[in-house]
Protein backbone atom coordinates (compact mmCIF):
# COMPACT_ATOMS: atom_id res chain seq x y z
CA UNK A 1 0.00 0.00 0.00
CA UNK A 2 1.40 3.37 -1.06
CA UNK A 3 0.78 6.12 1.52
CA UNK A 4 -0.20 9.71 0.73
CA UNK A 5 3.11 10.88 2.22
CA UNK A 6 5.05 8.62 -0.17
CA UNK A 7 3.10 9.98 -3.13
CA UNK A 8 3.92 13.58 -2.14
CA UNK A 9 7.55 12.72 -1.60
CA UNK A 10 7.74 11.11 -5.04
CA UNK A 11 5.97 14.11 -6.59
CA UNK A 12 8.53 16.39 -4.95
CA UNK A 13 11.38 14.25 -6.23
CA UNK A 14 10.03 14.43 -9.80
CA UNK A 15 9.54 18.17 -9.39
CA UNK A 16 13.16 18.66 -8.38
CA UNK A 17 14.30 16.53 -11.33
CA UNK A 18 12.36 18.81 -13.69
CA UNK A 19 13.80 21.87 -11.92
CA UNK A 20 17.29 20.46 -12.21
CA UNK A 21 16.63 20.22 -15.96
CA UNK A 22 15.99 23.96 -16.01
CA UNK A 23 12.24 24.26 -15.44
CA UNK A 24 10.78 27.04 -13.30
CA UNK A 25 8.41 25.89 -10.59
CA UNK A 26 4.85 27.23 -10.87
CA UNK A 27 1.72 26.89 -8.74
CA UNK A 28 -1.94 26.80 -9.70
CA UNK A 29 -4.98 27.48 -7.53
CA UNK A 30 -7.00 24.42 -6.53
CA UNK A 31 -10.24 26.33 -7.18
CA UNK A 32 -10.39 27.21 -10.87
CA UNK A 33 -13.14 29.39 -12.44
CA UNK A 34 -15.60 26.96 -14.03
CA UNK A 35 -16.32 29.12 -17.07
CA UNK A 36 -12.86 28.71 -18.65
CA UNK A 37 -13.07 24.92 -18.52
CA UNK A 38 -16.72 24.80 -19.61
CA UNK A 39 -16.00 26.95 -22.65
CA UNK A 40 -13.02 24.77 -23.50
CA UNK A 41 -14.31 21.25 -22.89
CA UNK A 42 -18.04 21.85 -23.01
CA UNK A 43 -20.70 20.65 -20.61
CA UNK A 44 -19.11 17.16 -20.38
CA UNK A 45 -16.53 18.50 -17.93
CA UNK A 46 -19.32 18.83 -15.34
CA UNK A 47 -19.58 15.07 -15.30
CA UNK A 48 -15.82 14.61 -14.97
CA UNK A 49 -14.94 17.41 -12.56
CA UNK A 50 -16.02 18.51 -9.10
CA UNK A 51 -18.14 21.60 -9.48
CA UNK A 52 -18.34 23.85 -6.41
CA UNK A 53 -20.74 26.70 -5.74
CA UNK A 54 -20.19 29.94 -3.94
CA UNK A 55 -23.04 32.45 -3.58
CA UNK A 56 -20.69 35.35 -4.40
CA UNK A 57 -17.83 33.92 -6.45
CA UNK A 58 -20.00 31.66 -8.57
CA UNK A 59 -19.03 28.25 -9.92
CA UNK A 60 -15.54 26.87 -9.55
CA UNK A 61 -14.01 23.51 -10.37
CA UNK A 62 -11.57 21.63 -8.23
CA UNK A 63 -8.53 21.81 -10.56
CA UNK A 64 -9.16 19.13 -13.22
CA UNK A 65 -5.72 19.66 -14.76
CA UNK A 66 -2.67 21.92 -14.51
CA UNK A 67 -2.24 22.62 -18.20
CA UNK A 68 -5.00 25.21 -18.46
CA UNK A 69 -3.90 27.40 -15.50
CA UNK A 70 -0.23 27.06 -16.51
CA UNK A 71 -1.03 28.19 -20.06
CA UNK A 72 -3.10 31.09 -18.71
CA UNK A 73 -0.28 32.22 -16.43
CA UNK A 74 2.24 31.97 -19.24
CA UNK A 75 0.07 33.85 -21.72
CA UNK A 76 -0.52 36.61 -19.16
CA UNK A 77 3.02 37.23 -17.98
CA UNK A 78 5.46 34.59 -19.22
CA UNK A 79 8.83 35.18 -20.86
CA UNK A 80 9.76 33.22 -23.98
CA UNK A 81 10.90 30.53 -24.29
CA UNK A 82 9.76 29.01 -21.01
CA UNK A 83 10.01 25.70 -19.21
CA UNK A 84 7.71 25.12 -16.24
CA UNK A 85 7.22 22.38 -13.69
CA UNK A 86 4.55 21.80 -11.05
CA UNK A 87 3.33 19.14 -8.66
CA UNK A 88 -0.03 18.74 -7.03
CA UNK A 89 -3.38 16.99 -7.06
CA UNK A 90 -5.92 17.04 -9.84
CA UNK A 91 -9.51 16.08 -9.14
CA UNK A 92 -11.75 13.93 -11.31
CA UNK A 93 -15.30 12.86 -10.51
CA UNK A 94 -16.34 9.27 -11.22
CA UNK A 95 -19.38 10.04 -13.32
CA UNK A 96 -20.43 6.46 -13.89
CA UNK A 97 -19.41 4.89 -10.64
CA UNK A 98 -15.96 4.11 -12.01
CA UNK A 99 -13.27 3.01 -9.60
CA UNK A 100 -11.03 5.88 -10.71
CA UNK A 101 -9.43 7.89 -7.90
CA UNK A 102 -11.03 11.22 -7.07
CA UNK A 103 -7.69 12.84 -6.31
CA UNK A 104 -4.58 12.05 -8.34
CA UNK A 105 -1.17 13.62 -7.85
CA UNK A 106 0.73 14.77 -10.90
CA UNK A 107 4.18 16.16 -11.52
CA UNK A 108 4.36 17.95 -14.84
CA UNK A 109 6.68 19.61 -17.30
CA UNK A 110 5.51 22.15 -19.90
CA UNK A 111 7.57 23.86 -22.59
CA UNK A 112 6.59 27.04 -24.49
CA UNK A 113 9.03 27.49 -27.33
CA UNK A 114 8.72 28.81 -30.89
CA UNK A 115 11.89 27.09 -32.14
CA UNK A 116 12.25 23.66 -33.72
CA UNK A 117 8.96 21.96 -32.73
CA UNK A 118 10.14 18.37 -33.22
CA UNK A 119 13.19 18.99 -31.03
CA UNK A 120 10.86 20.28 -28.29
CA UNK A 121 8.54 17.27 -28.73
CA UNK A 122 11.56 15.01 -28.33
CA UNK A 123 12.83 16.96 -25.33
CA UNK A 124 9.57 16.59 -23.38
CA UNK A 125 9.22 12.90 -24.29
CA UNK A 126 12.85 12.18 -23.36
CA UNK A 127 12.67 14.20 -20.13
CA UNK A 128 9.74 12.10 -18.93
CA UNK A 129 11.20 8.87 -20.30
CA UNK A 130 14.45 9.48 -18.35
CA UNK A 131 12.49 9.53 -15.10
CA UNK A 132 10.93 6.15 -15.91
CA UNK A 133 14.09 4.26 -16.86
CA UNK A 134 14.02 1.70 -14.05
CA UNK A 135 10.39 0.67 -14.44
CA UNK A 136 8.83 -1.59 -17.09
CA UNK A 137 6.81 0.81 -19.22
CA UNK A 138 5.52 0.64 -22.76
CA UNK A 139 5.54 3.91 -24.65
CA UNK A 140 2.82 4.71 -27.15
CA UNK A 141 2.84 7.69 -29.48
CA UNK A 142 0.64 9.26 -32.07
CA UNK A 143 0.20 12.47 -33.98
CA UNK A 144 -3.21 14.11 -34.33
CA UNK A 145 -1.62 16.25 -37.05
CA UNK A 146 -1.82 13.35 -39.52
CA UNK A 147 -5.58 12.98 -39.17
CA UNK A 148 -6.01 16.75 -39.33
CA UNK A 149 -3.94 16.89 -42.52
CA UNK A 150 -6.11 14.15 -44.01
CA UNK A 151 -9.33 15.97 -43.13
CA UNK A 152 -7.97 19.20 -44.60
CA UNK A 153 -7.10 17.34 -47.79
CA UNK A 154 -10.60 15.92 -48.31
CA UNK A 155 -12.13 17.00 -51.60
CA UNK A 156 -15.41 18.35 -50.25
CA UNK A 157 -16.97 21.59 -49.00
CA UNK A 158 -15.31 23.85 -46.40
CA UNK A 159 -18.31 23.39 -44.13
CA UNK A 160 -17.93 19.61 -44.18
CA UNK A 161 -14.22 19.81 -43.43
CA UNK A 162 -14.96 22.21 -40.56
CA UNK A 163 -17.62 19.85 -39.17
CA UNK A 164 -15.15 16.94 -39.25
CA UNK A 165 -12.42 19.03 -37.60
CA UNK A 166 -14.82 20.09 -34.87
CA UNK A 167 -15.50 16.46 -34.00
CA UNK A 168 -12.00 15.09 -34.50
CA UNK A 169 -11.82 14.18 -30.78
CA UNK A 170 -15.23 12.42 -30.79
CA UNK A 171 -14.52 9.20 -32.71
CA UNK A 172 -18.13 7.95 -32.96
CA UNK A 173 -19.53 11.26 -34.15
CA UNK A 174 -16.57 11.71 -36.52
CA UNK A 175 -17.33 8.35 -38.17
CA UNK A 176 -21.02 9.22 -38.41
CA UNK A 177 -20.15 12.44 -40.24
CA UNK A 178 -17.69 10.62 -42.53
CA UNK A 179 -20.44 8.18 -43.43
CA UNK A 180 -22.93 10.94 -44.17
CA UNK A 181 -20.48 13.01 -46.20
CA UNK A 182 -19.37 10.04 -48.27
CA UNK A 183 -22.84 8.70 -49.09
CA UNK A 184 -23.94 9.22 -52.67
CA UNK A 185 -27.33 10.68 -51.87
CA UNK A 186 -28.31 13.00 -49.08
CA UNK A 187 -32.02 13.51 -48.61
CA UNK A 188 -33.32 16.95 -49.31
CA UNK A 189 -34.60 18.42 -46.01
CA UNK A 190 -38.40 18.28 -45.95
CA UNK A 191 -38.41 21.38 -43.80
CA UNK A 192 -41.19 23.94 -44.10
CA UNK A 193 -40.65 27.67 -44.00
CA UNK A 194 -39.88 29.17 -40.58
CA UNK A 195 -42.29 32.04 -41.27
CA UNK A 196 -45.21 29.66 -40.69
CA UNK A 197 -44.58 29.66 -36.92
CA UNK A 198 -43.92 32.30 -34.23
CA UNK A 199 -40.22 33.15 -34.05
CA UNK A 200 -39.43 32.83 -30.35
CA UNK A 201 -36.06 32.99 -28.59
CA UNK A 202 -32.61 34.40 -29.27
CA UNK A 203 -31.90 32.41 -32.44
CA UNK A 204 -33.73 34.28 -35.18
CA UNK A 205 -35.24 33.53 -38.58
CA UNK A 206 -32.12 34.61 -40.48
CA UNK A 207 -30.13 31.92 -38.68
CA UNK A 208 -32.70 29.27 -39.58
CA UNK A 209 -32.68 30.44 -43.22
CA UNK A 210 -28.88 30.38 -43.29
CA UNK A 211 -28.80 26.80 -42.11
CA UNK A 212 -31.59 25.73 -44.47
CA UNK A 213 -29.35 27.04 -47.24
CA UNK A 214 -26.46 24.96 -45.88
CA UNK A 215 -28.69 21.87 -45.84
CA UNK A 216 -29.71 22.58 -49.41
CA UNK A 217 -26.04 22.86 -50.44
CA UNK A 218 -25.40 19.52 -48.73
CA UNK A 219 -27.69 17.79 -51.22
CA UNK A 220 -25.54 18.81 -54.19
CA UNK A 221 -22.11 18.88 -52.47
CA UNK A 222 -19.65 16.34 -53.90
CA UNK A 223 -19.47 13.32 -51.62
CA UNK A 224 -16.11 12.33 -50.14
CA UNK A 225 -14.48 9.80 -52.46
CA UNK A 226 -14.16 6.16 -51.45
CA UNK A 227 -10.35 6.18 -51.71
CA UNK A 228 -10.17 9.18 -49.33
CA UNK A 229 -12.44 7.42 -46.84
CA UNK A 230 -10.12 4.41 -47.11
CA UNK A 231 -7.07 6.56 -46.26
CA UNK A 232 -8.81 7.95 -43.15
CA UNK A 233 -9.75 4.40 -42.10
CA UNK A 234 -6.16 3.25 -42.64
CA UNK A 235 -4.76 6.12 -40.57
CA UNK A 236 -7.15 5.34 -37.71
CA UNK A 237 -6.34 1.62 -37.82
CA UNK A 238 -2.57 2.11 -38.02
CA UNK A 239 -0.72 0.48 -35.11
CA UNK A 240 2.95 -0.30 -35.77
CA UNK A 241 6.46 0.35 -34.52
CA UNK A 242 7.36 3.90 -35.54
CA UNK A 243 9.65 3.23 -38.57
CA UNK A 244 7.12 0.80 -40.06
CA UNK A 245 4.30 3.26 -39.32
CA UNK A 246 6.14 5.93 -41.30
CA UNK A 247 6.59 3.64 -44.33
CA UNK A 248 2.91 2.67 -44.23
CA UNK A 249 1.92 6.33 -44.00
CA UNK A 250 4.10 7.05 -47.04
CA UNK A 251 2.16 4.41 -48.97
CA UNK A 252 -1.12 6.05 -47.92
CA UNK A 253 0.28 9.40 -49.04
CA UNK A 254 0.54 8.13 -52.63
CA UNK A 255 -3.28 8.42 -52.64
CA UNK A 256 -3.26 11.62 -50.59
CA UNK A 257 -0.09 13.67 -51.19
CA UNK A 258 -1.25 16.35 -48.71
CA UNK A 259 -0.18 13.97 -45.92
CA UNK A 260 3.51 14.36 -46.81
CA UNK A 261 4.34 17.38 -44.59
CA UNK A 262 2.77 15.67 -41.55
CA UNK A 263 4.73 12.47 -42.28
CA UNK A 264 7.98 14.41 -42.78
CA UNK A 265 7.36 15.94 -39.36
CA UNK A 266 6.98 12.49 -37.77
CA UNK A 267 10.19 11.34 -39.42
CA UNK A 268 12.07 14.45 -38.27
CA UNK A 269 10.71 13.85 -34.78
CA UNK A 270 12.00 10.27 -34.82
CA UNK A 271 15.46 11.66 -35.68
CA UNK A 272 15.16 14.17 -32.83
CA UNK A 273 14.11 11.37 -30.46
CA UNK A 274 17.07 9.25 -31.62
CA UNK A 275 19.37 12.18 -30.87
CA UNK A 276 17.91 12.19 -27.36
CA UNK A 277 18.76 8.50 -26.97
CA UNK A 278 15.23 7.13 -27.49
CA UNK A 279 15.12 3.73 -29.24
CA UNK A 280 12.56 4.58 -31.89
CA UNK A 281 12.64 1.11 -33.47
CA UNK A 282 10.70 -0.13 -30.42
CA UNK A 283 8.41 2.87 -30.16
CA UNK A 284 4.72 2.19 -30.84
CA UNK A 285 2.85 4.55 -33.12
CA UNK A 286 -0.96 4.51 -33.25
CA UNK A 287 -2.90 6.51 -35.81
CA UNK A 288 -5.84 7.16 -33.50
CA UNK A 289 -3.80 7.63 -30.31
CA UNK A 290 -4.86 10.59 -28.18
CA UNK A 291 -8.23 11.10 -29.82
CA UNK A 292 -10.25 10.45 -26.70
CA UNK A 293 -9.88 12.11 -23.31
CA UNK A 294 -7.03 14.33 -24.53
CA UNK A 295 -9.15 16.93 -26.20
CA UNK A 296 -6.69 19.79 -26.41
CA UNK A 297 -3.78 17.90 -27.99
CA UNK A 298 -3.38 18.71 -31.67
CA UNK A 299 0.02 17.29 -32.65
CA UNK A 300 2.46 14.82 -31.10
CA UNK A 301 0.85 12.75 -28.32
CA UNK A 302 2.42 10.16 -26.08
CA UNK A 303 1.83 7.97 -23.06
CA UNK A 304 3.81 5.54 -20.91
CA UNK A 305 1.95 2.50 -19.61
CA UNK A 306 2.77 -0.07 -16.98
CA UNK A 307 1.04 -3.28 -15.97
CA UNK A 308 0.24 -3.85 -12.31
CA UNK A 309 -2.42 -6.32 -11.10
CA UNK A 310 -2.97 -7.33 -14.74
CA UNK A 311 -4.31 -3.87 -15.54
CA UNK A 312 -2.49 -1.49 -17.83
CA UNK A 313 -2.40 1.97 -16.28
CA UNK A 314 -1.09 5.25 -17.61
CA UNK A 315 2.05 6.25 -15.71
CA UNK A 316 2.62 9.38 -17.79
CA UNK A 317 0.87 11.18 -20.65
CA UNK A 318 1.47 14.28 -22.68
CA UNK A 319 1.45 16.02 -26.00
CA UNK A 320 1.46 19.18 -28.06
CA UNK A 321 -1.35 21.71 -27.65
CA UNK A 322 -0.57 24.69 -29.87
CA UNK A 323 -4.24 25.60 -30.43
CA UNK A 324 -4.99 25.74 -26.71
CA UNK A 325 -2.55 28.61 -26.24
CA UNK A 326 -4.34 30.67 -28.88
CA UNK A 327 -7.77 29.95 -27.35
CA UNK A 328 -6.55 30.96 -23.88
CA UNK A 329 -4.13 33.61 -25.17
CA UNK A 330 -6.77 36.13 -26.25
CA UNK A 331 -5.32 36.65 -29.70
CA UNK A 332 -1.76 35.58 -28.99
CA UNK A 333 -0.41 32.06 -29.23
CA UNK A 334 2.77 30.05 -28.79
CA UNK A 335 3.61 26.45 -29.63
CA UNK A 336 3.52 24.33 -26.46
CA UNK A 337 4.21 20.76 -25.39
CA UNK A 338 3.82 19.20 -21.99
CA UNK A 339 3.39 16.02 -20.02
CA UNK A 340 2.65 14.71 -16.55
CA UNK A 341 3.85 11.77 -14.50
CA UNK A 342 1.50 10.21 -11.93
CA UNK A 343 3.71 9.53 -8.90
CA UNK A 344 1.32 7.06 -7.28
CA UNK A 345 1.03 4.92 -10.41
CA UNK A 346 4.81 5.09 -10.75
CA UNK A 347 5.37 3.93 -7.15
CA UNK A 348 2.87 1.10 -7.58
CA UNK A 349 4.60 -0.06 -10.73
CA UNK A 350 8.00 0.16 -9.06
CA UNK A 351 6.58 -2.01 -6.26
CA UNK A 352 5.83 -4.79 -8.73
CA UNK A 353 9.42 -4.97 -10.01
Amino acid at each position, binding site marked *: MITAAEVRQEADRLLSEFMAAGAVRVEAEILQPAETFLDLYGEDIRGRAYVTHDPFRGEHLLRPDFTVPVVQAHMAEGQEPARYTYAGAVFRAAENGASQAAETWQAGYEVFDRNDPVAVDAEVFARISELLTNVPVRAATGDIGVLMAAVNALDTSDKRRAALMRHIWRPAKFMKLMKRFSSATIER*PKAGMPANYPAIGVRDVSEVMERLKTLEEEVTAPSIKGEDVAVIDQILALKEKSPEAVSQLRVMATNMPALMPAIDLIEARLDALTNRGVKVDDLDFEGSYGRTSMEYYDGFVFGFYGVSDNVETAIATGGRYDALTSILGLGRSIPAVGGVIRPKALLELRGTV
Partner: protein
Amino acid sequence: MSLKLGVPSKGRLMEQTFNWFADRGVTLRKSKSDREYAGTVSGVEGVSLVMLSAGEIPRELAAGRIHLGVTGLDMVAEKLADWPSQVSDISPMGFGYADLIVAVPKFWTDVETLDDLDAVAAQFRARHGFRLRIATKYHRLVRQHLRDAGVADYQLVDSQGATEGAIANLTAEAIADITSTGATLVANHLKILGGDPILASQATLFLSKSAEMDAANEAAWHTLKQKLGV
Protein backbone atom coordinates in the same frame (compact mmCIF):
# COMPACT_ATOMS: atom_id res chain seq x y z
CA MET B 1 -38.80 -2.48 12.58
CA SER B 2 -41.46 -2.81 9.94
CA LEU B 3 -41.03 -2.87 6.18
CA LYS B 4 -41.17 0.75 5.06
CA LEU B 5 -43.01 1.69 1.90
CA GLY B 6 -42.42 5.21 0.61
CA VAL B 7 -45.14 6.71 -1.60
CA PRO B 8 -45.74 10.17 -3.09
CA SER B 9 -47.39 12.39 -0.50
CA LYS B 10 -49.80 14.33 -2.68
CA GLY B 11 -51.58 14.83 -5.97
CA ARG B 12 -52.49 12.50 -8.78
CA LEU B 13 -49.41 10.35 -8.35
CA MET B 14 -50.48 9.59 -4.75
CA GLU B 15 -54.06 8.78 -5.76
CA GLN B 16 -52.97 6.50 -8.58
CA THR B 17 -50.50 4.76 -6.27
CA PHE B 18 -53.26 4.18 -3.69
CA ASN B 19 -55.53 2.80 -6.44
CA TRP B 20 -52.82 0.50 -7.80
CA PHE B 21 -52.28 -1.04 -4.34
CA ALA B 22 -56.06 -1.16 -3.64
CA ASP B 23 -56.64 -3.11 -6.89
CA ARG B 24 -54.28 -5.72 -5.45
CA GLY B 25 -55.92 -5.93 -2.03
CA VAL B 26 -53.59 -3.65 -0.13
CA THR B 27 -55.17 -0.50 1.30
CA LEU B 28 -52.99 2.55 1.76
CA ARG B 29 -54.62 5.33 3.73
CA LYS B 30 -53.46 8.82 4.53
CA SER B 31 -54.14 9.86 8.15
CA LYS B 32 -57.36 11.77 8.75
CA SER B 33 -55.76 15.18 8.93
CA ASP B 34 -55.23 16.31 5.38
CA ARG B 35 -52.10 18.19 6.31
CA GLU B 36 -50.36 15.38 8.16
CA TYR B 37 -47.93 13.30 6.10
CA ALA B 38 -48.57 9.96 7.80
CA GLY B 39 -50.61 6.96 6.82
CA THR B 40 -51.43 3.32 7.36
CA VAL B 41 -51.28 0.07 5.42
CA SER B 42 -53.92 -2.62 5.80
CA GLY B 43 -54.29 -5.93 4.03
CA VAL B 44 -50.77 -7.05 4.84
CA GLU B 45 -48.93 -7.28 8.17
CA GLY B 46 -45.67 -5.58 9.07
CA VAL B 47 -45.66 -2.84 6.43
CA SER B 48 -45.66 0.84 7.34
CA LEU B 49 -46.33 3.82 5.12
CA VAL B 50 -43.95 6.77 4.65
CA MET B 51 -45.31 9.76 2.77
CA LEU B 52 -42.60 11.57 0.84
CA SER B 53 -42.08 13.96 -2.03
CA ALA B 54 -41.68 11.84 -5.18
CA GLY B 55 -38.35 13.56 -5.83
CA GLU B 56 -36.93 12.45 -2.46
CA ILE B 57 -37.90 8.80 -2.75
CA PRO B 58 -34.78 7.84 -4.82
CA ARG B 59 -32.47 9.28 -2.16
CA GLU B 60 -34.32 7.53 0.69
CA LEU B 61 -34.17 4.20 -1.19
CA ALA B 62 -30.46 4.61 -1.89
CA ALA B 63 -29.79 5.44 1.77
CA GLY B 64 -31.78 2.39 2.84
CA ARG B 65 -34.12 4.41 5.06
CA ILE B 66 -37.10 2.93 3.20
CA HIS B 67 -37.31 -0.61 1.79
CA LEU B 68 -39.80 0.04 -1.00
CA GLY B 69 -40.67 3.18 -2.86
CA VAL B 70 -42.98 4.38 -5.62
CA THR B 71 -41.68 7.08 -7.93
CA GLY B 72 -41.01 7.77 -11.59
CA LEU B 73 -38.11 6.02 -13.33
CA ASP B 74 -37.01 9.51 -14.46
CA MET B 75 -36.43 10.56 -10.83
CA VAL B 76 -34.43 7.43 -10.01
CA ALA B 77 -32.34 7.56 -13.20
CA GLU B 78 -31.55 11.27 -12.75
CA LYS B 79 -30.76 11.23 -9.05
CA LEU B 80 -28.96 7.90 -8.57
CA ALA B 81 -25.68 7.26 -10.36
CA ASP B 82 -25.74 3.75 -11.89
CA TRP B 83 -29.21 3.27 -10.38
CA PRO B 84 -29.49 -0.51 -11.00
CA SER B 85 -26.65 -1.00 -8.52
CA GLN B 86 -28.63 0.83 -5.82
CA VAL B 87 -32.27 -0.17 -6.35
CA SER B 88 -34.20 -2.94 -8.15
CA ASP B 89 -37.19 -2.06 -10.29
CA ILE B 90 -39.83 -4.48 -9.07
CA SER B 91 -42.74 -3.51 -11.29
CA PRO B 92 -43.83 -0.78 -13.67
CA MET B 93 -47.23 0.47 -12.48
CA GLY B 94 -48.93 1.60 -15.68
CA PHE B 95 -49.42 5.28 -14.85
CA GLY B 96 -47.41 8.48 -14.55
CA TYR B 97 -46.17 7.99 -18.10
CA ALA B 98 -43.67 10.66 -19.12
CA ASP B 99 -40.96 10.89 -21.76
CA LEU B 100 -37.83 12.95 -21.23
CA ILE B 101 -37.38 14.74 -24.55
CA VAL B 102 -35.47 17.57 -26.18
CA ALA B 103 -37.63 20.31 -27.73
CA VAL B 104 -36.82 23.33 -29.88
CA PRO B 105 -38.95 26.15 -31.33
CA LYS B 106 -41.31 24.97 -34.04
CA PHE B 107 -40.01 27.61 -36.46
CA TRP B 108 -36.56 25.93 -36.40
CA THR B 109 -37.52 24.06 -39.55
CA ASP B 110 -33.83 23.22 -40.05
CA VAL B 111 -33.76 21.05 -36.93
CA GLU B 112 -35.21 17.54 -36.81
CA THR B 113 -32.56 15.49 -34.99
CA LEU B 114 -29.80 15.73 -32.39
CA ASP B 115 -27.30 15.91 -35.26
CA ASP B 116 -29.11 19.04 -36.45
CA LEU B 117 -29.05 20.44 -32.92
CA ASP B 118 -25.28 19.86 -32.78
CA ALA B 119 -24.78 21.69 -36.08
CA VAL B 120 -26.98 24.55 -34.86
CA ALA B 121 -24.98 24.70 -31.60
CA ALA B 122 -21.81 25.32 -33.62
CA GLN B 123 -23.55 27.96 -35.74
CA PHE B 124 -25.08 29.60 -32.66
CA ARG B 125 -21.80 29.79 -30.76
CA ALA B 126 -20.03 31.32 -33.76
CA ARG B 127 -22.78 33.92 -34.18
CA HIS B 128 -23.57 34.79 -30.55
CA GLY B 129 -20.30 34.06 -28.76
CA PHE B 130 -21.76 31.74 -26.14
CA ARG B 131 -22.80 28.12 -26.03
CA LEU B 132 -26.39 27.24 -26.98
CA ARG B 133 -28.44 26.99 -23.78
CA ILE B 134 -30.66 24.01 -22.98
CA ALA B 135 -32.98 24.49 -19.98
CA THR B 136 -33.64 21.40 -17.88
CA LYS B 137 -33.80 19.93 -14.41
CA TYR B 138 -32.55 16.54 -15.63
CA HIS B 139 -28.88 17.54 -15.84
CA ARG B 140 -27.22 14.14 -15.60
CA LEU B 141 -29.53 12.26 -17.99
CA VAL B 142 -29.46 15.01 -20.59
CA ARG B 143 -25.70 15.49 -20.42
CA GLN B 144 -25.03 11.76 -20.83
CA HIS B 145 -27.48 11.51 -23.70
CA LEU B 146 -26.02 14.49 -25.56
CA ARG B 147 -22.47 13.25 -24.99
CA ASP B 148 -23.35 9.82 -26.41
CA ALA B 149 -24.98 11.53 -29.40
CA GLY B 150 -21.88 13.67 -30.00
CA VAL B 151 -23.51 17.04 -29.35
CA ALA B 152 -21.01 19.81 -28.49
CA ASP B 153 -21.00 23.57 -27.88
CA TYR B 154 -24.09 23.59 -25.67
CA GLN B 155 -24.65 24.44 -22.01
CA LEU B 156 -27.28 23.27 -19.58
CA VAL B 157 -29.12 25.95 -17.63
CA ASP B 158 -31.11 24.92 -14.60
CA SER B 159 -34.88 25.19 -14.79
CA GLN B 160 -36.96 23.72 -11.97
CA GLY B 161 -40.35 24.62 -13.44
CA ALA B 162 -42.19 26.31 -16.33
CA THR B 163 -39.30 25.07 -18.48
CA GLU B 164 -41.36 25.34 -21.69
CA GLY B 165 -41.38 29.11 -21.26
CA ALA B 166 -37.59 29.45 -21.09
CA ILE B 167 -37.12 30.00 -24.84
CA ALA B 168 -39.72 32.77 -25.16
CA ASN B 169 -38.21 34.31 -22.01
CA LEU B 170 -34.80 34.34 -23.76
CA THR B 171 -33.16 32.28 -21.03
CA ALA B 172 -32.56 29.22 -23.25
CA GLU B 173 -32.56 28.19 -26.92
CA ALA B 174 -33.85 24.64 -26.36
CA ILE B 175 -35.31 22.63 -23.49
CA ALA B 176 -35.09 19.08 -22.17
CA ASP B 177 -38.10 18.14 -20.07
CA ILE B 178 -40.66 15.44 -19.41
CA THR B 179 -43.89 15.42 -21.34
CA SER B 180 -46.87 13.10 -21.38
CA THR B 181 -49.30 14.56 -23.91
CA GLY B 182 -47.09 17.23 -25.47
CA ALA B 183 -49.89 19.81 -25.09
CA THR B 184 -47.76 22.28 -23.13
CA LEU B 185 -45.04 22.05 -25.77
CA VAL B 186 -47.50 22.84 -28.54
CA ALA B 187 -48.95 25.76 -26.56
CA ASN B 188 -45.44 27.18 -26.26
CA HIS B 189 -44.68 26.77 -30.00
CA LEU B 190 -42.18 23.97 -29.43
CA LYS B 191 -41.60 20.64 -31.17
CA ILE B 192 -39.95 17.42 -30.01
CA LEU B 193 -36.78 16.29 -31.80
CA GLY B 194 -37.10 13.04 -33.71
CA GLY B 195 -35.76 9.69 -32.51
CA ASP B 196 -36.20 7.89 -29.21
CA PRO B 197 -36.81 9.94 -26.07
CA ILE B 198 -33.87 10.30 -23.67
CA LEU B 199 -35.90 8.18 -21.27
CA ALA B 200 -39.38 6.66 -21.32
CA SER B 201 -40.57 6.85 -17.74
CA GLN B 202 -43.56 5.68 -15.71
CA ALA B 203 -44.37 5.24 -12.03
CA THR B 204 -42.46 2.20 -10.80
CA LEU B 205 -42.21 0.19 -7.58
CA PHE B 206 -38.57 0.05 -6.48
CA LEU B 207 -36.81 -2.06 -3.85
CA SER B 208 -33.80 -0.69 -2.01
CA LYS B 209 -30.65 -2.81 -2.21
CA SER B 210 -29.23 -1.35 0.98
CA ALA B 211 -32.19 -1.26 3.43
CA GLU B 212 -31.79 -3.68 6.30
CA MET B 213 -33.97 -6.79 5.91
CA ASP B 214 -34.52 -8.77 9.09
CA ALA B 215 -36.57 -11.99 9.17
CA ALA B 216 -39.83 -10.12 9.87
CA ASN B 217 -39.18 -7.74 6.96
CA GLU B 218 -38.36 -10.65 4.66
CA ALA B 219 -41.65 -12.32 5.64
CA ALA B 220 -43.64 -9.10 5.13
CA TRP B 221 -41.99 -8.52 1.74
CA HIS B 222 -42.71 -12.13 0.70
CA THR B 223 -46.41 -11.76 1.56
CA LEU B 224 -46.67 -8.33 -0.04
CA LYS B 225 -45.02 -9.57 -3.23
CA GLN B 226 -47.57 -12.35 -3.55
CA LYS B 227 -50.49 -10.00 -2.94
CA LEU B 228 -49.20 -7.54 -5.51
CA GLY B 229 -48.38 -10.28 -7.97
CA VAL B 230 -44.94 -8.84 -8.72
